[in-house]
């Protein structure tokens, strides 16, 4: 978990998956927040070693691009998490 929630959010729970593992977030969380409350990073870096967990949080650096199981990709910092999202970090698929 890289992020820590410091202001409780009273909204409804959202169930989603990261690399097929079930995870939970709250309505109003960005996908980035949702993932980083459940995982240490967002994705594997495609041009070298290590993982990435976003950087600018304002839609400029594109470091937080993540893929869904259907192959589409979104910028996690400007996309709200929603029920049933299935994201892949690239950590296990080589």
């Amino acid at each position, binding site marked *: 978990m890289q*992020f820590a929630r*410091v202001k409780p959010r009273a909204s409804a729970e959202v169930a989603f998956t990261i690399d097929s593992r079930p995870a939970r977030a709250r309505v109003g969380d960005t996908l980035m927040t949702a993932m980083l409350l459940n995982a240490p990073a967002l994705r594997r870096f495609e041009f070298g070693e290590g993982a990435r967990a*976003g950087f600018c*949080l304002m839609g400029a650096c*594109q*470091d937080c691009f993540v893929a869904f199981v259907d192959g589409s990709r979104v910028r996690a910092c400007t996309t709200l998490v929603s029920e049933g999202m299935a994201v892949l970090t690239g950590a296990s698929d080589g």
Partner: protein
Amino acid sequence: MAEPRVVVVGAGPAGMRACAALAEAGLRPVLVDEAARPGGRIYQQPPDGAGRPARELYGLEAAKATRIHALAPALAGRIDHRAETLAWNCFADALDLLGPGGPSRVEFDALVLATGATDLALPFPGWTLPGVYALGGAQIALKAQGCAIGRRVAFLGAGPLLPLVACQYLEAGVAVAAVLDATPFLAKLRGLPRMLSAPATLAKGMLYVARLRRAGVPIFFDVRRPRVEGRGRVERLRFEAGGVEREVACDALGASFGLRSETQLADLAGCRFEFDPRTRQHVPARDAAGRSSRRHVYVAGDGAGIGGADAAELAGERAALALLEDLGLSFDANRAAWLEGSLARLDVFRRGLEAAYPFPEHMVRDLDDATMLCRCEGISAGALREAAIAKDAGEVNRAKAFTRVGMGRCQGRMCGRAAAEVLAMARGEALGQAGRLRAQPPVKPIPMLPGVLS
């Protein structure tokens, strides 16, 4: 003439004030903004349902934030607000948009670009580790998401955002490991006389530092050679301060070194750019009212040069009045003169701030060849220096062709300024000679749009 078609890009302080002035004059501007709700990054609103008061979200700036937010309902029906919409290309008389309803094109007779700024990132060892975020990003996590970027957070910077964000984390109950200022303490004294021109703003900055000190947060100045270390995550930060090697344990770092203007649309609109030695970046050339070199294209706010949120409000309104004047519509000339006078007064404070937080050139000088400079493509500082010297690439677009620096998904937003600094220093040339990365459409990655990208 038929009702002029006016488009404003950006719903931050500059864009919202421009819209208000245009609507006041009876026009119905199209407002294009990537966010769901207005406010820009400085006054970013959380998604619905956060239930947090403005005082908690925006601190001492709550009243200003609330006034900007209140413009949206006040202007409802008088502006055409296209929320969650990216303007990804700009022509002489039209913008290509991508919004919730899909792609569209909006034509304009006049355009106000209020595209704002991002953090100015500079590379240092470990800056791509998970847990290292831009200072502004660390602030957005807190205000828009109610989250901290870690549990024990250090902050590194070279601008007024540094003590502000550190203080906001402290007040949110997060452990602040240390506040590291990459500029010397003496610079603050040099900036003081001019900053006295806005005593209330100066007092706020001093209040943040006082709160940090009272809470026992270690504050270091003239911090050199920062290095983030850890196995796959942030575990500690090493640095030099006062000639002494130090180490701080932390699990996250917020770091940036000022702000940089977002100028891609002005570039695609064909505006002439000029080098601004004060902010060390190329910005669209503009007159005191915000007129760019392109007829009926106006630039305002931090996207036209770094001036801060208060100046952005004034500049947005001033640009709108210039637009009205240039279209032959009635406008309040006295108001326009007052706005320009106010902007000139704010600029005195801005000069003081720039003296208090000079650009940390040592970050460029001390940058080792092995450190990744382009985080999108994983290109090292050494590769760029090699292109600069061995391949005689004296300008960033040429260096980009050789090295791919700035060719990745961020299009140089995170590395372009550092690349210019590294290039100029490696060649011993003036910074302005290194140029600026040219903007390319789409200005941000978009899904493949059938028939649009042909």
